[in-house]
């Protein structure tokens, strides 16, 4: 699958998680690969679209999870945490670059998410890129703004290393407008310049007292702590703002050991523009939260901050849903503080545009670009990321960088290359209400071993420790594979209704007036209908699902396999394969005699495949299915039992000893139970004439 885009067939409804992502990350498919234990491929798939997977897996606000259809059964898949799991544990060293090499060199200003994404994609298209970064390290706001307890710098470095391996050069301590200019870059021979400098300043409040000693700006405060490890604050810190940066400021301040840290914001708890998780963690760590209060003036004593006078908020957004806060008159009260950190948004620093009046900017200080070409008003100069968006997330900035890369390529080559992933596609609709009851509830895996509070506040070490392998697989196995399940080939369907009658989730239908069955986006991918369809008219849309066939054939490619006696092929359900710490429990004897074929749900394995195993050279076939409570699907046991009976009949018809085909239902595919069963089968078959 290396570097290949997965080829899907049948239907064009896309999974909501993929559509929700600004860079259209293949969330469903990397989750499905994790569920199958195919981790390196999963990482490769992530990396195909995402230049910063390790960082993204930690700080992305994951709109994919907001749209996840598991929200309607219990809770969304922890898609971001799974990406982090891949980024932390796997790497991709073999990604091949295009053979195409273009002579043009591209200058990229800023090594933040937009700049890095643009450089990554331009390098993959065949261009030489140089990033000019004013700091001495890469990452932009990821490094300057995001606290290390949320994003360790090693994660950024790992991501950036890959980008460098593509040939991207990064020149640090080089500031546009100081060390280099647009003219000097053009003189050096750069054919295009991409500005991705981000928003480097904090917005300030226009109220009395903002100039008092003890009023800090959020971005500067975070920058200082992130670079020096410390900043000067008092004993009673108040952060003004309700977004992610405000939470970062508050939690960072806590780690500098003041007596109290509070957050005051205009928004109610529900309106706060950050993830629930961040707010909960801040509160858990000891931050006091003042919701629905607006700053009236900062109070001072002897030139120093002493508190904030607030007004109660009537509403934040007006009837047109515009940000237009209104306050109750006479509702003043005071929150005491000796340090106030303003985290009410970021602003641009456009000093680098001095002498470049041709580049038009908005009143808000963002650069104006054509939204489809990313061109500024000066020829050859492009811009993207926060400096264009005004306010964006990490993934939105990466998306801008990626889109700008294609736009720059199209401009330089005079072509119309298009990334089809961004084209409009219909989303798989919400689960039908009647279906929800038929789908097993599966508890979302919690981030394990969160660092205890007393340890957290004594350091800037990462709070979330990451999924271990077994938890990651369990979590990934909750995925419903939306939009990638079964579909019916109208040319083959004979309208026999078998799928309609046997689906445990009641998905297939023959619509009124139609003569063939139709399987909609609620398909859970159990594959029962695929096996039972007498016309072989149903198959999976996803190429990730081979129902054991390719794996079986691969097993028999092994050299000297035909010399092993007895050789046992074990078909097992992967849903119960990762519920113990020990994954590889087959001892040496079994390692020699047993070959294992994992399938995500044995209901999708055709009985003829068991015969195929014998035909290829197996002496025994051992089917180990899940006990009901350990499988993701419903009715698996019932169908595996039916097919066991059916297969046994087929084999008996051939006069085969029935000891050569056995099915067991076990709760773990990695424990003593499977070991015992396999051992017993090896022993039994030793005595049979093979």
């Amino acid at each position: 699958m290396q570097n290949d885009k997965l080829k899907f067939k049948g239907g064009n409804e896309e999974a909501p998680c993929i559509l929700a992502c600004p860079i259209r990350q293949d969330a469903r498919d990397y989750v499905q690969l994790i569920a199958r234990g195919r981790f390196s491929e999963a990482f490769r798939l992530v990396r195909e679209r995402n230049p910063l997977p390790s960082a993204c897996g930690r700080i992305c606000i994951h709109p994919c999870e907001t749209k996840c259809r598991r929200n309607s059964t219990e809770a969304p898949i922890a898609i971001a945490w799974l990406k982090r799991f891949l980024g932390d544990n796997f790497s991709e060293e073999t990604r091949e670059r295009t053979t195409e090499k273009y002579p043009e060199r591209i200058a990229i200003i800023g090594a933040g998410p937009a700049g890095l994404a643009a450089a990554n994609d331009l390098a993959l298209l065949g261009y030489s890129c140089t990033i000019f970064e004013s700091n001495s390290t890469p990452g932009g706001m990821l490094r300057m703004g995001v606290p290390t307890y949320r994003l360790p710098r090693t994660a950024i470095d790992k991501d950036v290393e890959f980008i460098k391996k593509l040939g991207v050069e990064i020149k640090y301590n080089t500031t546009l407008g100081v060390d280099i200019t647009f003219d000097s870059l053009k003189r050096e021979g750069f054919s295009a310049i991409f500005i991705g400098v981000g928003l480097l300043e904090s917005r300030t409040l226009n109220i009395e007292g903002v100039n008092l000693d003890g009023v800090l700006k959020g971005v500067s405060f975070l920058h200082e702590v992130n670079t020096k490890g410390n900043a000067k604050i008092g004993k009673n810190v108040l952060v003004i703002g309700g977004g992610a940066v405000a939470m970062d400021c508050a939690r960072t301040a806590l780690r500098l050991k003041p007596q109290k840290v509070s957050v005051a914001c205009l928004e109610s708890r529900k309106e706060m523009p950050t993830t629930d998780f961040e707010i909960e963690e801040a509160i858990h760590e000891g931050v006091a939260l003042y919701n629905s209060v607006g700053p009236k003036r900062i109070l001072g004593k002897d030139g120093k901050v002493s508190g904030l006078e607030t007004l109660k908020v009537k509403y934040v957004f007006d009837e047109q849903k515009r940000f237009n806060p209104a306050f109750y008159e006479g509702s003043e009260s005071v929150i005491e503080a000796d340090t106030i950190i303003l985290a009410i948004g970021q602003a641009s620093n456009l000093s680098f545009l001095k002498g470049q009046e041709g580049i038009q900017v908005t009143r808000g200080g963002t650069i104006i670009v054509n939204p489809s070409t990313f061109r500024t008003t000066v020829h050859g100069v492009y811009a993207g990321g926060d400096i264009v968006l005004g306010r964006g997330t990490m993934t939105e900035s990466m998306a801008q960088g990626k889109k700008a890369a294609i736009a720059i390529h199209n401009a330089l080559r005079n072509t119309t290359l298009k990334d089809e992933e961004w084209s409009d596609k219909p989303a798989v609709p919400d689960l039908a209400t009647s279906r929800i009851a038929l789908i097993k509830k599966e508890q979302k895996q919690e981030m394990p071993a969160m660092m205890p509070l007393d340890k957290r506040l004594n350091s800037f070490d990462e709070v979330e420790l990451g999924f271990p392998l077994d938890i990651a697989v369990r979590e990934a196995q909750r995925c419903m594979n939306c939009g990638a399940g079964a579909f019916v080939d109208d040319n083959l369907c004979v309208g026999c209704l078998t799928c309609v009658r046997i689906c445990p989730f009641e998905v297939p239908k023959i619509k009124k007036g139609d003569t063939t069955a139709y399987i909609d986006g609620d398909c859970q991918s159990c594959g029962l209908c695929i096996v039972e369809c007498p016309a072989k008219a149903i198959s999976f849309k996803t190429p990730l699902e081979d129902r054991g066939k390719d794996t079986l054939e691969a097993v028999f490619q092994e050299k000297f396999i035909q010399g092993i006696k007895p050789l046992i092929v074990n078909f097992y359900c992967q849903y119960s394969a990762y519920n113990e710490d020990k994954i590889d429990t087959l001892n040496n004897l079994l390692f020699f005699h047993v070959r294992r074929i994992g399938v995500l749900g044995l209901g999708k394995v055709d009985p003829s495949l068991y015969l195929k195993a014998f035909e290829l050279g197996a002496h025994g076939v051992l089917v180990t299915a899940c006990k009901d409570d350990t499988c993701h699907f419903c009715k698996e046991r019932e169908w595996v039992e039916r097919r066991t009976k059916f297969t046994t009949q087929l084999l008996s018809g051939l006069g085969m000893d029935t000891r050569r085909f056995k099915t067991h239902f076990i709760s773990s595919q990695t424990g003593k139970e499977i070991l015992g069963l396999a051992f017993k089968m090896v022993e039994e078959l030793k005595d049979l004439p093979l």
Partner: protein
Amino acid sequence: MIVASSKPFQEIKQMLSGFKKICVLGCGSCVTICHTGGEKQVTELAAQLRLSAKLEGGQIEVVEDSTLRQCEWEFVEDIKEIVKDCDAVLSIACGVGVQYMAERFPKIRVFPGVNTTFMGGPIEQGIFWERCAGCGNCILATTGGLCPVSRCAKSLLNGPCGGSQNGKCEVSQETPCVWNQIYDQLDTQQLLATMETIIPPKDWTTGMENHPRKMILEHLVMKKQIS
């Protein structure tokens, strides 16, 4: 639809004994729907044949294919290239399909892989019952839409007989007495009086007594006959 059941594998094996290249040929109509002659069964039977040969230390080549309907010359023609190199064809279509194959490819041995059993349907998933005997002279109008010819063990035209017990047939406790069902149906339709009308002896010459039967649709017959 026509319902067929799979032949025992041993019988198939005996028929095909000695042949080295066999085509297992399914049919995409009735036998697909009754799960005995579709593409899925082609795969299963082919796997059985190969495995059986292997178990006996031999080797055979099995080609797998299926037609939309084996009872149409044009569709049968489509597989000409596939069967031409085969020593034998195992057709798992109904008897009609097997004969079309045998007629079209007279030099190739064609064998039946299924027993064509009756005309009926799935009364529930996986359970098929006979519903029509093809008597050529339908009397369903007088029996509440339930056929005593195909569903009564004695094909009685005026039932039930004394062997009807608690709604079941004396021949098998699994079989509902169709005359009991006819009675209930007519009762529901307030047509019980119909039961008193004696159905006269039937002209059986329109049915199995008169092979081979033939139907001609004059308005559709082309000058040049197909085949």
